[in-house]
C-alpha cells in the first residue's frame, strides 16, 4: 500500500484503483511474456538436441497427460506435498520457540550454538542413508529429513529477529511494568514475526530442495521418486514432468504462504 497523505489526497484516492489495475495488467503481461520466451527457448533446445536429451514442451505435456490419466501425477503431488507440509510444519513449530529462547536467553544460545553451527552445514542428502536405516522406508524417514532441513533455518531466522528487537521497545515494556515472560510473549514475539515469516519461506524452499533426495531411496510414490524411477525407465519426458510439477508446486505453496502471512500478519509488519 502506498501512504496517502490525509487531506489533499481525495482526487488521487479516487483515481488509484484504475492505476493499480493498469499496473497489475502490465505486470501480468510481463509475466506471460517471460513464460512464453522460456517455453520458446526450451522448444529451440529440444529441437537442436533431440528428444532423447531434451523432451520438447509438447512431449512433456503429452507425458503429463499420460501420468495424470493413470493417477500417478496426482498421487505424486499429494504424497510429496504431504511430506513437505508435515516436515516443514513441524520444523516451524519447533524452530520458532527454540529460536525465541536462543535469541532471548544467552545460556541457551551458547549451549545450542555449536550444534546449530555444525548441522546447518550438513545437507539432508548426507543423512538419507541413516534416516532409512534408523527409521525404515516408511513416511517418517522422509518427514524427518524435511523437518531437519526446515528447523535450523527457522531457528536461525527467529533468533536473529529476537536479537534485532529494538532496545527501546524492550526498555519501554519493562518500565511500563511488563515481566520477563510478558515481554517475551507481548513484545519479542510480535516484533520477530517478519523474521519468522522469512525463515518459514526459506525453509519451504529448502524443503523442496530436500524432497527429491528424501525420496531417492525406497519411496513408492512422490515427485522425487517419479524423477528417480523415470531415470531407470529412460523416460526423459517423465523426468521433465516431475521437475516442472515440483517447480509449480513450490511456487503455489510459496504464494499461498505469502498471501496468508500478509493477510493475517499484516499488523506485525509482514510485507510480501
Amino acid at each position, binding site marked *: 500500500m502506498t501512504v496517502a497523505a490525509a487531506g489533499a489526497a481525495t482526487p488521487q484516492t479516487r483515481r488509484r484503483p484504475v492505476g493499480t489495475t493498469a499496473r497489475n495488467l502490465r505486470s501480468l503481461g510481463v509475466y506471460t511474456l517471460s513464460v512464453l520466451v522460456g517455453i520458446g527457448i526450451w522448444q529451440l533446445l529440444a529441437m537442436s538436441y533431440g528428444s532423447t536429451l531434451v523432451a520438447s514442451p509438447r512431449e512433456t505435456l503429452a507425458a503429463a497427460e499420460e501420468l495424470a490419466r493413470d493417477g500417478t501425477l496426482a498421487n505424486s503431488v499429494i504424497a510429496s506435498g504431504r511430506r513437505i507440509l508435515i516436515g516443514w510444519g513441524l520444523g516451524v513449530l519447533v524452530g520458532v520457540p527454540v529460536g525465541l529462547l536462543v535469541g532471548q536467553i544467552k545460556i541457551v544460545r551458547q549451549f545450542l550454538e555449536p550444534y546449530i553451527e555444525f548441522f546447518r552445514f550438513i545437507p539432508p542428502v548426507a543423512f538419507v542413508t541413516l534416516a532409512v536405516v534408523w527409521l525404515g522406508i516408511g513416511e517418517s524417514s522422509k518427514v524427518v529429513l524435511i523437518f531437519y532441513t526446515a528447523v535450523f533455518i527457522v531457528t536461525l531466522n527467529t533468533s536473529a529477529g529476537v536479537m534485532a528487537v529494538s532496545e*527501546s*521497545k524492550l526498555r519501554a*515494556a*519493562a*518500565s511500563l*511494568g511488563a515481566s520477563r515472560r*510478558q515481554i517475551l510473549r507481548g513484545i519479542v514475539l510480535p*516484533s520477530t514475526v517478519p523474521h519468522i515469516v522469512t525463515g518459514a519461506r526459506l525453509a519451504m524452499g529448502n524443503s523442496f530442495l530436500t524432497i527429491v533426495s528424501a525420496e531417492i531411496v525406497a519411496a513408492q510414490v512422490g515427485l522425487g521418486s517419479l524423477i528417480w524411477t523415470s531415470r531407470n525407465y529412460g523416460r526423459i519426458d517423465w523426468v521433465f514432468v516431475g521437475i516442472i510439477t515440483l517447480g509449480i508446486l513450490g511456487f503455489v505453496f510459496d504464494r499461498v504462504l505469502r498471501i496468508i502471512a500478509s493477510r493475517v500478519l499484516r*499488523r506485525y509488519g509482514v510485507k510480501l
Partner: protein
Amino acid sequence: MTKAIETDRRETGSAPGRGAAVSVDGVGIRFGSFQAVSNISLDIAAGEFLCLLGPSGCGKSTLLSAMAGFEAVSEGDLRVGGAPITGPHPGLGMVFQSSEALFDWMTVRQNVAFGPRMRGATRAAQTKLADEYLGLVGLRHCADRFPGRLSGGMRQRVQIARVLANEPGVVLMDEPFGALDAQTRQVMQEETDRIWRASGCTVVFVTHDIDEAILLADRIAVMTAGPAASVKSVYPVDLPRPRDEADPAATELRRALRADIGEEVRKALRDQGLDPGLDQDVDLKGNLR
C-alpha cells in the same frame, strides 16, 4: 520488579496527584573501565520540572537511564520517593527520543493501555484510562489507528500518554522532541508544559536545547562535558508560566547558560585535540568578548 518504589497513585486519575521526589547522591556510572558520569548530586523535589542540559555525549541520557532503572549505578545512591531504584518500575515512566519505543502492531489505544494491562486492570478500566490520557494529549480521535500512520509529533504524544496512563510519580524524558521539526517541537513544548501541570508528576527532561530548557524547567542542571561528567551548575528559572522567550530575564539566563555550555564544548574539543581557535576571544555566537 519489587514494590520498592512508593509513588502516589491516584484513584481515578482525574485529580491532580503529586510526583515523587528524586534524590541523586554522589552517583557515578561506569561501563567497564569507562567512567560515563561521576559524583553527581541533585535533589529533585516532588512535582518539580528539572532539565538536564549539556553538550552531546556528556552522559545526560546515561544518568536518565539509571533513574529509569535501566542501568545500575556504580557509586553513590539513587532514590525515588525515599526508596532505592532496583530496576525498571511503572512508577518511573520513560519517554524515549525515538518513537521506535512504540509497539507498532498495537493500536494507539492498546499502546496507551499497555501499562494498565500489565498490572492486570480490567478491560473496561484499561480503555477508560487509555481514553482519558489520549484526551489529555489531544489524540482521542486517533485511538484506533496504528502508530505507523501518525506523524512524529503525534507518536511522541502517544508515548507521553502511555507513560501517564501508568500514573507514575516521575516521568523521565530523553530528548523527546529532538527528532521533530521546529514547528512541531514548539507545539510539543507548550503541550508538555500544560500536560505536566495537569498531571503533577515530577519530570526530569534531558535536552541539549537551551531554549527548550528555559521554556519548560523549574531548574536547569548544566552538565560538564564527558567522560566522567558531573553537574557543573544549577540554575533556577524564576519566570512566570507560560514562558515568554522574549522576556529580558530569559535572555539574561540564555546568555549565562550559553557561556556555561560553551565553555564545556570548548573543553571537550580541546580534549579531542581539536582547537578551532574559539578559545579566548570569541564566544560560541561569534561575538568578541
